[in-house]
């Protein structure tokens, strides 16, 4: 009798294990999306035992399964970014969401983005911020490109005619053509600091920078050895100064991830709207603090959101 009960229990256990395994939802392919947390030596510190966390989210754009969407501001009818994201994400496999570029104020209900900004083809801000150096285009199809403003070499494609254009947004006529293109393509455009462009560091250390132990977050688009493109979100919860944060992220990508080229690396603002969530492959939210922003913030307080999703 005892044996029978044991055998039955064991059988039920096996069945349950397999059935839950089969029932488990996989929102993304773990070969294309990977997360890891590393404890690495602090750059510039002589003591090798002093380490700091690096939270890495790597997303391969191989076969175009990983896509990006940016919610730049509340919509024209006043719908907040949080609500826009919630309705959009209802049927999406969201990998991660993060606050994006700089806003003029911390209060999401009245905050406006800084620098040229077009949301889904709608102009949000016409003013170009030359000091940011970077301009980023998020295509309605889920792709992303960036360019250094002073290079004047932003390449855009007309989806209907497949014709290509190179735009210099500093030229007033080309800027108007670019805005018209973005309206037609329903593209999203935003500006932020472009720290690395084609492997070149574009930031000079400010000896007067006082900020210590501030969190830093960067989005890097890199070419891998096999020719594929990967997007990395490097979250440094204790990165010290901005310059040191950029150097740490760049060195990590080049030396540890061994990427062939950092096509561009931009800043994701973890200031007063420090929003960051990463999801596990089963769709649950990663609870590890290194993969989260300010725990006091709710989605409704997000002033803008960069969302990565899997299709």
């Amino acid at each position, binding site marked *: 009798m005892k044996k029978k009960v044991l055998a039955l229990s064991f059988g039920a256990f096996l069945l349950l294990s397999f059935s839950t395994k089969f029932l488990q939802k996989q929102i993304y392919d773990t070969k294309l999306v990977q997360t890891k947390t590393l404890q690495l030596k602090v750059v510039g510190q002589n003591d090798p035992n002093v380490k700091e966390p690096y939270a890495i989210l790597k997303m391969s754009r191989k076969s175009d399964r990983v896509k990006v969407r940016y919610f730049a501001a509340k919509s024209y009818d006043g719908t907040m970014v949080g609500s826009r994201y919630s309705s959009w994400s209802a049927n999406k496999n969201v990998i991660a969401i993060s606050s994006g570029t700089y806003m003029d104020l911390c209060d999401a209900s009245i905050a406006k983005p800084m620098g040229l900004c077009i949301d889904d083809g709608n102009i949000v801000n016409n003013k170009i911020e030359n000091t940011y150096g970077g301009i980023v285009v998020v295509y309605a199809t889920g792709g992303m490109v960036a360019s250094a403003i002073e290079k004047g070499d932003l390449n855009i494609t007309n989806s209907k005619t497949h014709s290509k254009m190179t735009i210099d947004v500093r030229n007033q006529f080309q800027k108007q053509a670019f805005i018209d293109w973005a309206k037609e393509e329903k593209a999203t455009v935003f500006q932020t600091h472009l720290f690395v462009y084609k492997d070149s560091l574009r930031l000079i250390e400010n000896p007067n920078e006082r*900020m210590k132990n501030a969190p830093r977050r960067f989005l890097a688009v890199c070419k891998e050895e096999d020719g594929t493109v990967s997007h990395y979100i490097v979250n440094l919860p204790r990165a010290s100064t901005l310059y040191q944060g950029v150097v740490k992220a760049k060195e990590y990508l080049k030396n540890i991830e061994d990427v062939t080229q950092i096509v561009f690396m931009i800043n994701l603002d973890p200031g007063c709207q420090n929003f960051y969530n990463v999801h596990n492959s089963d769709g649950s939210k990663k609870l590890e603090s290194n993969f989260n922003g300010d725990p006091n913030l709710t989605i409704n307080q997000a002033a803008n959101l960069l969302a990565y999703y899997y299709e």
Partner: protein
Amino acid sequence: MPNSTRNKIIVSLTALIIVVLFFFLSKANNNNYLPEQRNTESNCTYNLYAKLTGLNNQNIVAQFPYNDYLEHSNFNNIECLKKDLTDLDSVTKDAMTSQQILATTLTDSLQKRVANVYKIYQPDSLIYLMQWAERFQYYAEIDTKNKILFKVVYDYWMNFISDKLTLFSKETPSIKYAFKFKFLVAKCSERKYNIGLKVTSTEKVIDNLVRSKWGHLFDASWNQASLLQKILLSLLIVTFLYGIYCIILKHFFK
């Protein structure tokens, strides 16, 4: 210290504080006068066609009379601008080139001429400039043929004004609270030219206090504090708690 002397000191200090307060209040810029919009002259007497004699589509960009045009033409009036574009077309044989020449005149060349006016913060001049630039947005809506020219001129000057406001607020942070400055910032914002005004640490703290963002306030302060500041704060908290402990001990457990 005798009571009368103490009272005198207290009264004097209070009076001093009130005087200082009134001094700063009197310095507040509450001037709410706004310059009125200027009327547009309707005469288009400037003969651009005559000035273009001898020019062709090869040399017109280099030899266009940019300064003379800005000196004598009526470039505030859309009808005059349209007439000038027709004159330009007769030489360039290309509408886009004509628009580009006029755009350069009304942006880069005009900016060089008026640069000195905008070196220092003169809100009335900026308001007049904005009133002039705003017309071009309406011109773009009614004249679709030359839309791109009017959009370019409008965008150029709105960017110029918003850049200047950012610069002036960095040079003199107190102007952020002046009526005309706030008016200009609001107008830029209405036109979707957002100006990010530099906020000092104190202003950030006040803003977070007003909005009860205690979590962020603590996180930001703690992250930015040095080890010494953290030790000093801890000592203060310990001292404060010890004080409370002593008070409770003295009054309730005699």
